[in-house]
């Protein structure tokens, strides 16, 4: 995205170009000192030299945070003390699933990898990378399903006026969906279906099957061509996991890189249409 090899066309700036521009902007603002020193400073908002500091809540243009954002090439963001934003902290230890049992978590991890094409002929990731991806997605799905109970409770506890307003703005169906959000039985019944079916077809547990067999089971409940006899518990579980894999993958660093996402970037000029319309 912002590395030295990024294509600098369309006004999209490479890291080096942007740092030079930050230097220009810094000079325009009247800051003294080298840009390198400014970038190394802790997160404070400088005021122009010679002026009284501004009262709390007011601020001068600053480049420091941009440099911080530009430097950030990792998964984790610096967590400012007192921030209301829920940043993801680096993990303190191995992940412990909170909704799924450890063995069910393993199944979800495997399914997430298969949905993305792990181990297939056209898989674009090395197996080690795919494992990590599956882990991240399973953690996301664990959080997503765990959160449902709290969402349901909060939606059901809405004051009548707030509920009426939500229904007026988003539609009655939208608020009912929140009030009835229940992915938990979909997961439990879906996982049970998987085990029953693996035993019935192959006389083995799902996790003991080869990837090709697991993939075949997923095909039978996939949204591609649903056969009339396809079990609805399996299909509902497939739909849930696929939806969460999409949400979890395409908001991940790997997914955004794969999409070649050109947003959340730094442009020197308004990114408009370049070619013939």
């Amino acid at each position, binding site marked *: 995205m912002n590395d030295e090899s990024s294509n600098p066309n369309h006004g999209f700036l490479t890291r080096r170009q942007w740092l030079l521009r930050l230097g220009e902007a810094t000079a325009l603002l009247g800051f003294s000192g080298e840009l390198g020193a400014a970038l190394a400073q802790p*997160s404070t908002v400088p005021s122009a030299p010679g002026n009284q500091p501004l009262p709390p809540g007011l601020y001068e*243009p600053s480049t420091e945070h941009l440099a911080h954002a530009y430097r950030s090439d990792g998964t984790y963001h610096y967590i400012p003390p007192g921030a209301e934003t829920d940043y993801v902290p680096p993990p303190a230890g191995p992940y412990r699933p909170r909704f799924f049992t450890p063995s069910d978590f393993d199944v979800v991890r495997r399914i997430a990898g*298969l949905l993305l094409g792990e181990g297939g002929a056209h898989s674009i990731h090395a197996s080690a990378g795919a494992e990590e991806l599956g882990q991240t997605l399973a953690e996301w799905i664990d959080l997503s399903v765990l959160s449902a109970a709290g969402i349901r409770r909060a939606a059901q506890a809405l004051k009548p006026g707030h509920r009426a307003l939500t229904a007026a703005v988003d539609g009655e169906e939208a608020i009912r969906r929140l009030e009835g959000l229940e992915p938990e039985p979909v997961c439990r019944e879906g996982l049970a279906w998987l085990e029953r079916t693996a035993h019935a077809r192959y006389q083995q547990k799902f996790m003991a099957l080869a990837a090709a067999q697991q993939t075949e089971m997923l095909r039978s409940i*996939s949204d591609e061509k649903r056969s009339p006899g396809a079990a609805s518990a399996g299909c509902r579980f497939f739909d849930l996991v696929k939806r969460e894999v999409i949400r*979890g993958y395409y908001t991940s660093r790997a997914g955004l890189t794969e999409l070649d996402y050109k947003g959340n970037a*730094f442009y020197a000029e308004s990114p408009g249409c370049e*070619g013939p319309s």
Partner: protein
Amino acid sequence: MQVIRPAKVFDAIVVGSGASGGWVAKELTERGLEVLMLEAGPPRVPTRDFTEHVWPYQVKFRGFGDREALLAHQPVQRLCYACDEFSHQFFVDDHEHPYTFPAGKPFMWIRGRQVGGKTFCWARESYRYTDNEFKAASRDGFGQDWPVSYAELEPYYDRVESFIGVSGSREGLETMPDGRFLPPMRLSCGSLRVKEAVERRFGWRVMPDRVANLTVPHNGRPACHYCNQCQRGCFTASYFNSPSVTLPAAARTGRFTLLSDAVVSHVTLNSEAKAGGVHYVDRNTHAHREVRARAVVLAAGALESTRILLNSTSTRFPNGAGNSQGVLGHYLMDHFTLEGTGGILGSLQSAKREPTGNPCGFLIPKVVNTRGGPQNNAFLRGYRFDGDASQELYGHAFSLPGFGAEWRRQVREEIPYGFGMMAQGECLPRYENFVKLDPDTKDAWGIPALHISASYGENEKAMAAAMRAHLGEILDAVKPENAHLAPEELSVFGKNIHECGTARMGDDPKTSVVDRFNRLHDVKNVFVTDGAAFTTQGCYEPTLTIMAISARAGEYIAESFRRGEV
């Protein structure tokens, strides 16, 4: 109840630190007045509160939001498109800030309470009003005119645009005058397709939105770098918000005192129908205090300023300061919109990602019921359109059947190009749309909450039908795949966050609350400078006009001091 009353008397108190308050404070302090600004909310700290350039994978819910917390604490604010996992900190806790509305008349009241008000999260669209708005009543017979004209406001539009920086294209339109613009932003490929189709079919002008984002460095602020995350805060101050633009200008005069966390409950009135200052509650300690000034300017946001006035009672003004004629609180307006028109531009499907990040889309200015434009006698006044067009990021994956490497390849390489449009229409000012104090509901500081009663009428419904017909014709011109037309329902009142009126301007004290310089007819040293003072609303965003009026009022107040009239 103990009330602390410091001895100092300021020249002016300004209540509210947003678009209006910032301009008033700047004008007053630059002209030599000592100003105390009171802001109900806390200061925001950029390094703590801004989230620009944070990636979705760096926040707990990947940008989809902590829905339990939003439902529990911000059940109203979460309905706003701009209140999300990255920006919810700029919006109020709905339980601390309650309000009520009658059954069957839902009102969506979106508020930001902090130093800067809603200027962190506004959409930055900045269009001038003309005498089509200021003198609409003279032209079509409904309601009353503003007591000011475009000619009187033009120099203040110039002043505001020149200082804050507004990017836009020069179009030479009578209905929406060109301003003091920085270079316009560019349109996306899809937007150019729509523009071509609309211009060919209708001959209508399609242009980039005029937005208060900098396309070149301006007054010491760097140009925008097009991350399109303005509502998360902006370290480089490349769009207008008051904490980085107008408030620092006031602060640099050395005559500006800012008191945050000060929830103003009412203006203090003496027996001679003059204000002595304001009464406020400390947001954190709940201590009651009063501060004194020779003039009071209410710039707390349309409905909040009116709420303060309604709560400012005395023997002389039992129904609130400025309410001797029963007009205060009435003639509430908000634009209504038809949303959800659009489709897929099939010929722009691509395997290659386009650059993206413009914090603006395209605008089609009002044509219906304008001089020289098509006339529709089914309704008074008119509407405009805006929209945008861009590649889908991954939304198409949800409806793509299958899974695995080939499915992923399709998501990656068969990128649909979508476009969407909405239409925004003018709401007529009606007495029956009003706010009043709710005697049974108080906020977290014991201050009576508002009861808001508003609904759209026959004019809006007739206009909506025409808007929808036009949206359908635009779809027919553009011919997208998967075309969908906006449903018939008008948006919920308040949803467009352009609430105006309730303390309207006018020359006649019997039918208005403030005069041509925003001074209360009833109390000569109290002013209301925000959207509450609007007499009509047009179909364009109000904030630029709020700022122009505030700059003018600030200048007038300072001149009044100089002439010894205050």
